């Protein structure tokens, strides 16, 4: 009981910390690829938040097995949402990287301050 409580709050704190680590990378790093990595960390933290919500004590993955009665399941809805969100995240990332590649070709660098200075 106690451990599960602690774990519950710990999950949320980890979420907050990882979220901010990612955000920090996006805001303060100059290298464009680093920013994108930070962005993906930032998004992953959100996934953690949603999935943490879906756990039910003593439950199991929401797959109904024939012949087993009265199973306790964890909530399927956040999982569906996160599946979608993961795919959206990857798509954004792919686009972002394509843009970075073009920037590299056009400017010769992927450090933000150099790019801003070049124009």
């Amino acid at each position: 009981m106690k451990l599960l409580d602690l774990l519950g709050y710990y999950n949320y704190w980890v979420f907050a910390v990882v979220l901010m680590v990612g955000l920090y990378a996006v805001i303060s790093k100059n290298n464009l690829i680093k920013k994108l990595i930070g962005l993906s960390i930032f998004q992953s933290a959100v996934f953690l938040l949603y999935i943490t919500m879906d756990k039910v004590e003593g439950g199991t993955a929401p797959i109904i097995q024939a012949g087993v009665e009265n199973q306790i399941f964890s909530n399927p809805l956040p999982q569906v949402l996160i599946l979608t969100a993961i795919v959206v995240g990857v798509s954004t990332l792919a686009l972002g990287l394509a843009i970075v590649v073009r920037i590299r070709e056009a400017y010769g660098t992927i450090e933000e301050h150099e790019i801003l200075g070049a124009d």
Partner: protein
Amino acid sequence: MIYVFALFLLTLLVITAVAIVRTTNLFVAVMLTSIFSLLMAANFFILDAADVALTEAAVGAGVTTVIFLSALALAGDVEQPRLGSRLLPLGTVGVLAVLIIYATFDKPRLGDPDAPVHQHVAPWYLEKTPEYMDIPNVVTAVLSSFRGYDTLGEVFVVFAACIGVLFILGVRPPGPAAELPAEPSGLRHHLIPQVVGRLLVPFIVLFGLYVQFHGEYGPGGGFQAGAIIATGVILYALLEGEAEALRAVPRSVLLGLVVGGALLFGAVGVVCMLMGGAFLDYSVLAADPVFGQQMGIIVIEAGVGMAVCGALLSIFHAFAAREGRP
């Protein structure tokens, strides 16, 4: 017991995240990101989210890493040390973190079955899935049918990413154009990857197909399957060289897969409308509504798998084709 393990995993997650931000070698950062995804996937599994764990592992740790690496090959992999003060970002971030943690104290306890999240909609899904669809995997049921419209949107997000990358990288880069090498390149001269890879590729593709069609019975479904099959082909491309891979699965086929997958999904919806139901209401597809639901789910999952596979491969080829130019 497993909760201690979870605590450990979560701590590792934080450490990895910090390490990623601090390192200046981008290659290291990308590898660490891959590990980060894997840790996330393990965590999801502990939290009973099997489908999500599979997707995060396949897409996050697998495909994302490949795309990052291809971009790194084109853009250079060392980050310059930052100038300027860190105070403002650190400050903002710190304040926000405190705010969020403050908000956590009122949240429902982890695992509490009485939390609002678990009332209302969720039990309805769990109850009604056997009745309406008779498939074991509730997540797939919700994803493809109850909230199928969202999934349609998601397929179009993937589609958008695909045409976006093709569009953006469709511009000829400055400098002399390099021909695709006439003879196969790739890792031909390295024996171990060759042997192992050749063994693996057919199994990977087979596994991908398994995941696709068993999405209703166990964790799996279109997205994971698409990613897995794409990974198999990418492995083939790495081994045999891009030219061979393009000969095996040419660009036009890829584009056809992407467009076909998206249209297939949409078409199912329209067919439902034409047969008298609402958009994406599968129960009108067959005489027996339950069977209709199952049919509908299989078809759209196939559409999803096709689209994801085609898109990921197109994106990979778009990046790879630019390789070798300075």
